[in-house]
């Protein structure tokens, strides 16, 4: 190198490119070569490279261990219930009465309750969700789209306890009066609420699927004289079908796993509705059972183990649903990237051997669920479909058909917007009078009827900060290892599968784990620390996946460019890959913060108390938290109307504010960088 350096000034004696070229100061003379090119320099460099690699490997391993430990721990604690009842009795028994004179631990009723509520929710969410997705992807002008899309994402930002609160105060009273029943707390109320809660998932995933249909398909159809609706109906939706299916399944997973909203509006009687289609009957879900009973159970009793059994059943259902979505989404990916090498985490031979059984099992379970839901959805939209079909069949002009169809699409997005509007309007108008400086800073008095929510706000912030500090380093580290240091193979695939499973795990299950392992087994007690770790575990999979997505979106050509300049692996990651990935990572982190701030179920038994005059002085003390405070005010304290709304509004503003930041960051950078 020195040689060529010397050749520059006196080389060929020609001046180049017309301008005077300053003699390049040699990089080599910078003292760095003494360090970097020498043996010790190289040793130092290799040490750093290997150190970084090991560090990320450890985080990845920790993540996967945590994931599988949670699963293992739940099963371990559920197993002793087989001393009291057989597995068959447990699953098929129709009576759930763990505190009776002769306790009965049959979860069949609870499973039915979960299924019924989910089916009802899907009957509402599927037509509205797909209609809204079609509207946003195909019909909305860019300006309308820019409003409608974030609006639906905001719907996802409303914490479940706020939904539950709204359902309890507004929805159930409305049902009671409209349907003339003694109580509005019912299957129907649960389904309506869960339907609304599942909407954002269904809309955004479907919309992505529709938007991903190649333009050429649409243009080809339009060029042959098909109407826009015909094109949507016969070309675009069929092409996006698997994506839409995955969206529905993910939405279903959300509905199955929801706890707080269901507890607050579904009535919670462990009975099978009689007759089975009686939507005004109260029902109790698996999640609801955990939320209600876990706090009061005697540790180590048969009831305690039975509740873990319930959690395992819940987890199994959620697992099947999410695995189904994962398989479908993966199929789509493979179809789209035909050249990509398939990642396999089972040997082909093993895979072939178990494939028929795995597919049959998963297929049967999914088909049953899908049939039920889609059946219900079909009933709910019968009129619309019959009308549309009649129009098409009678060969009333394509234009009229389009008008009717678009009418339905507009109706669905309008309904979604109305839902959003009503919820926000109710909480904001009723909440604003409660807001004052005292309310935001003072501790509560008279069981929260008077005074403020200061300690709850601070407690929530503490919990969230602790959760993100736990999840972010581990999650980002694991994602870096997965995406940058592995070239496919079984271990990363195992970690990814684990993260996906954990992602689909209902939040109450984390609460259960945190309670049994952190609070009891490790003897943390109900404390800030236990809550932080539980919430951290809950958001860990989200952090891993969003970070991985962000890293994946950085094109390989950039990495190659950096390597070709002689940068090391870590230098490339640190200087070249991470900086453009930061917005994506940040968005994921902020969304996780929002989720952690709004969740109630995981902290229910691990971290919170209802009333605490002073702020915690150490992480071993329990705290107040906004979602829990709202839950207790709404369900256990009569006559706290104003402070309820005030708390709901503060929580809503906090979480929505966090989501809004994430959305703004994402939209800003999406515009700025196109590869």
């Amino acid at each position, binding site marked *: 190198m020195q040689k060529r*350096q010397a050749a520059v000034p006196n080389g060929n004696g020609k001046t180049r490119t017309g*301008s005077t070229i300053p003699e390049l100061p040699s990089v080599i003379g910078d003292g760095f070569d003494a360090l970097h090119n020498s043996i010790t320099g190289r040793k130092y460099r290799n040490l750093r490279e290997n150190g970084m690699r090991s560090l990320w490997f450890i985080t990845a391993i920790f993540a996967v261990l945590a994931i599988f430990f949670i699963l293992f721990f739940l099963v371990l604690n559920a197993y002793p219930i087989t001393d009291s009842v057989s597995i068959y009795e447990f699953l098929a028994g129709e009576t759930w009465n763990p505190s009776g004179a002769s306790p009965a631990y049959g979860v069949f009723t609870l499973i039915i309750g979960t299924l019924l509520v989910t089916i009802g929710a899907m009957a509402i969410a599927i037509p509205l969700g797909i209609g809204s997705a079609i509207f946003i992807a195909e019909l909305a002008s860019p300006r309308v789209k820019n409003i409608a899309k974030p609006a639906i994402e905001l719907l996802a930002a409303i914490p479940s306890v706020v939904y539950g609160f709204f359902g309890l105060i507004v929805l159930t009273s409305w049902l009671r009066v409209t349907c003339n029943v003694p109580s509005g707390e019912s299957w129907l109320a649960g389904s309506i609420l869960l339907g609304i809660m599942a909407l954002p998932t269904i809309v955004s995933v479907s919309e992505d699927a529709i938007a991903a249909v190649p333009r050429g398909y649409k243009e080809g159809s339009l060029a042959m004289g098909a109407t826009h609706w015909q094109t949507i109906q016969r070309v675009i939706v069929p092409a996006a079908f698997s994506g839409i299916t995955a969206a529905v399944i993910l939405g279903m997973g959300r509905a199955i796993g929801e706890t707080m909203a269901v507890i607050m509006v579904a009535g919670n009687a462990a009975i099978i509705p009689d007759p089975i289609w009686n939507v005004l009957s109260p029902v109790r879900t698996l999640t609801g059972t955990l939320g209600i009973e876990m706090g009061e159970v005697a540790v180590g009793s048969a009831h305690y183990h039975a509740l873990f059994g319930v959690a395992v059943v819940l987890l199994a259902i959620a697992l099947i649903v999410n695995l189904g979505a994962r398989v479908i989404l993966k199929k789509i990916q493979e179809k789209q990237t035909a050249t990509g090498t398939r990642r396999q985490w089972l040997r082909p031979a093993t895979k072939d051997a178990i494939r028929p059984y795995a597919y049959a099992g998963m297929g049967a379970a999914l088909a049953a669920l899908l049939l039920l839901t889609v059946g219900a959805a079909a009933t709910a939209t019968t009129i619309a479909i019959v009308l549309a079909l009649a129009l098409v069949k009678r060969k009333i002009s394509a234009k009229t058909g389009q008008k009717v169809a678009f009418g339905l699409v507009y109706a669905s997005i309008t309904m979604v917007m109305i839902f959003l509007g009503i919820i926000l309007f109710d909480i904001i108008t009723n909440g604003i009078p409660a807001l004052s400086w005292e309310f935001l800073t003072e501790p509560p008095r008279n069981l929260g009827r008077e005074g403020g929510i200061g300690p709850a706000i601070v407690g929530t912030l503490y919990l969230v900060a602790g959760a993100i500090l736990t999840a972010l380093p581990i999650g980002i580290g694991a994602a870096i290892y997965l995406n940058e240091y592995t070239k496919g193979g079984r271990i990363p695939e195992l970690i990814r599968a684990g993260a996906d499973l954990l992602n689909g795990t209902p939040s109450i299950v984390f609460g259960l784990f945190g309670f049994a392992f952190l609070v009891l087994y490790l003897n943390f007690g109900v404390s800030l620390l236990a809550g932080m770790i539980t919430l951290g575990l809950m958001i860990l999979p989200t952090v891993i996946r969003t970070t991985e997505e962000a890293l994946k979106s950085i094109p390989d050509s950039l990495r190659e460019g950096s390597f*070709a300049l002689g940068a090391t692996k870590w230098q490339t990651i640190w200087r070249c890959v991470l900086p453009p990935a930061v917005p994506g990572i940040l968005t994921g982190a902020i969304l996780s913060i929002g989720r952690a701030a709004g969740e109630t179920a995981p902290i229910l038994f691990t971290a919170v108390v209802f009333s605490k005059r002073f702020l915690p002085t150490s992480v071993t003390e329990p705290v107040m938290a906004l979602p829990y405070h709202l839950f207790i005010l709404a369900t256990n304290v009569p006559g706290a109307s104003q402070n309820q709304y005030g708390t709901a509004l503060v929580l809503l503003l906090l979480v929505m504010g966090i989501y809004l930041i994430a959305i703004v960051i994402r939209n800003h950078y999406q515009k700025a960088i196109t590869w």
Partner: protein
Amino acid sequence: MQNNGNILTTRDVNLHYGESQALIDVSISIPKNRVTALIGPSGCGKSTLLRCFNRMNDLVANARITGEILFEGTNITGPETDVVELRKKIGMVFQKPNPFPASIYDNIAYGPRVHGTRDRKKLDAIVEGSLKKAALWDEVKDRLHESAMGLSGGQQQRLCIARTLAVEPEIILMDEPCSALDPIATAKIEDLIDELKKNYTVIIVTHNMQQAARVSDYTGFMYLGKMIEFGETVQIFESPQEEMTNNYITGRFG
């Protein structure tokens, strides 16, 4: 044409991607301070061979290489080779311009920085010098701190060349550097290559035979992983020894 000696020599290089063999018994010598072009139809292995020279094939999961590649007398195919050091000395420009999503200045300073240069004045001088060598200085000197993503395709490619020069390599590998560019931008890059060979050894892979004839001193024709013929460009294009080379350059296949 006088030969200054060879800077790179390959001996019986074979390369497999999994089951399929991409290079078969390639043995050539690349002369120093000259432009060498590798030509051949798609899939003939010319890019693969190029990527062997700075070990970019390490990034491909299942690539296996046998044989020797001697750079300044040392074999660089073995595990004991420090690939980071190697890539400092053998830089690469890619088919599609791949500037980092950072400012023009930071793109050029990236290499020197990862190799330990911190001094602002030195970096300034390196950036200016590299951009001048890449004939880009006059076009960008007033907006060094704007994003490199805002440059045109041809400017981006010259930026990538400047970025490579900033590390002061001895060899510059170019993998179809003009295939994503328009004719005017291509002409600028070709002029630049002509300038570069005074101080650097350039190895360029190209699809475009006219380009190979215009810019190179030596040419290797590859077909199905084999080096069919290697020699001075004039000789390859005017009196090829092999039937296959003749067929290819006269456009009978490929």
